[in-house]
């Protein structure tokens, strides 16, 4: 095939920061949000002023502030990635069972996660690449309990293969859990178990999105 049809030209969608910035626009004032590792951790720097968004860390911190300044680190105050952090005004600390009662009980508004794959029906695979080291942390609890699960990820993997696929081939984190997907190329919503393309990134056409997406979806472009 490569002999006759040229490979798709490299596309320049949003950067990792751009994905985080785009997602941050959709967070509403008063939301309580949990952030996974990767692009999600970039989201706080793009929170629009005037919106109060409370960040939750699974190790029992509600009201996560910026990372601690050098010399100000406190070994008793870390985030879920074991990094020294600070607290915002109004913060609360819980034990791990209470922290996961918050998560599983649906008391967060949004969880923002990275992904290996998202399926057409909103299944998520993000915890384990077979053959590598298995570790799950709180991912399965977060997707089981949080009303809105927003994925922030690159549209394709390093080999250029779509990460939005008909069915996940990687081990699942949860079934029918993803509600939105933010990538460098586009924004998708999952409605009634169906993927909808709602937005293309600046300079990206619907055709380019289709070329790089493995799963079926419908177009509901809002802009």
């Amino acid at each position, binding site marked *: 095939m490569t002999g006759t049809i040229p490979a798709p030209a490299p596309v320049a969608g949003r950067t990792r920061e751009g994905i985080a910035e785009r997602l941050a626009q959709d967070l509403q004032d008063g939301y309580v949000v949990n952030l996974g590792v990767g692009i999600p951790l970039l989201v706080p720097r793009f929170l629009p002023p005037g919106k109060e968004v409370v960040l939750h860390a699974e190790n029992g911190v509600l009201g996560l502030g910026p990372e601690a300044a050098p010399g100000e680190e406190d070994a008793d105050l870390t985030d879920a990635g074991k990094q020294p952090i600070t607290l915002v005004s109004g913060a609360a600390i819980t034990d*791990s069972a209470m922290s996961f009662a918050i998560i599983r009980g649906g008391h967060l508004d949004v969880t923002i996660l990275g992904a290996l794959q998202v399926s057409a029906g909103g299944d998520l695979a993000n915890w384990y690449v077979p053959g590598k080291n298995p570790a799950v942390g709180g991912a399965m609890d977060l997707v089981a309990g949080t009303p809105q699960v927003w994925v922030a990820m690159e549209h394709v993997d390093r080999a250029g293969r779509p990460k939005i696929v008909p069915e996940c081939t990687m081990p699942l984190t949860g079934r029918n859990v993803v509600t939105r997907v933010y990538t460098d190329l586009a924004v998708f919503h999952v409605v009634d178990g169906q993927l909808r393309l709602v937005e293309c990134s600046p300079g990206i056409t619907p055709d380019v999105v289709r070329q790089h997406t493995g799963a079926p979806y419908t177009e509901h472009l809002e802009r």
Partner: protein
Amino acid sequence: MIDKFREDVLSVVDAVPSGASIAVGGFGSSGRPDGLLDALCELDKRDLHVYVNNVGHDFTGVGRLLHEGRLRRVTASFPILQEFYDEYFAGRVELELLPQGTLAERLRAGGAGIPAFFTPSGAGTMLSDGSFTLRYSPDGGVAEHLPAKETRMINGREYVLEEGIVADFGFVKAHRGDRKGNLRFRLSARNFNPLAGMSGRRTFAEVEQLVEVDELHPDDVHLPGVFVQDVVRSTSKAASTPSSATSSTATSSTATSSTATTPAASAAATRRAS
């Protein structure tokens, strides 16, 4: 009169037989009871089953138990340490991998007299369907899978049956504790500690500050002494902080004027220094 304080950590931890199960508090090194874990090593305890969220990043705490070949099984959500995985893939240690919230709730439930509960976490995944490898064989094949878990549809949604954990022992670390065993934790070092303390049939607490009874206001006790059988002094971070320091006072992680009071602690301090 109830006085749960013991000067000698080794004589306390020696109650743990090789082969025992231990619920361990901490999230990474934050709030992890390293003094008690070091004592297991000093006492040459082996074949242990540890319930802990993560093994850690280095060969301290649970990582030291692993490094010294003292673990039979680890029940965890996020092991992290590469050497742990090397041992797991070589079939020398078992991994019961759980969603983090399931581990927390299983520890709590075990201590609360609840034998099992249904949770949505992990439904429809490898961690509930019997396909995750609990133990490898030395040739790299699968020796044993984590058993499939019972599931039930409740109001149209699938839930997984998870059992409460009653560990033989609970190991916890607290910021402040008194001779009645009442404990108070500090900031995010609380994490799994109250739950590990509830899960243990017999729980040991190492405390950074031993305070006078009534110095902890009853409203401020995070884990009441009824869950704690023995209290020892923690020899790690902030052990020498005056007990008058308020819990909001940041204690620098670098301030370790270690006042080692036991052979185990002395040995541990020597190792750290070398």
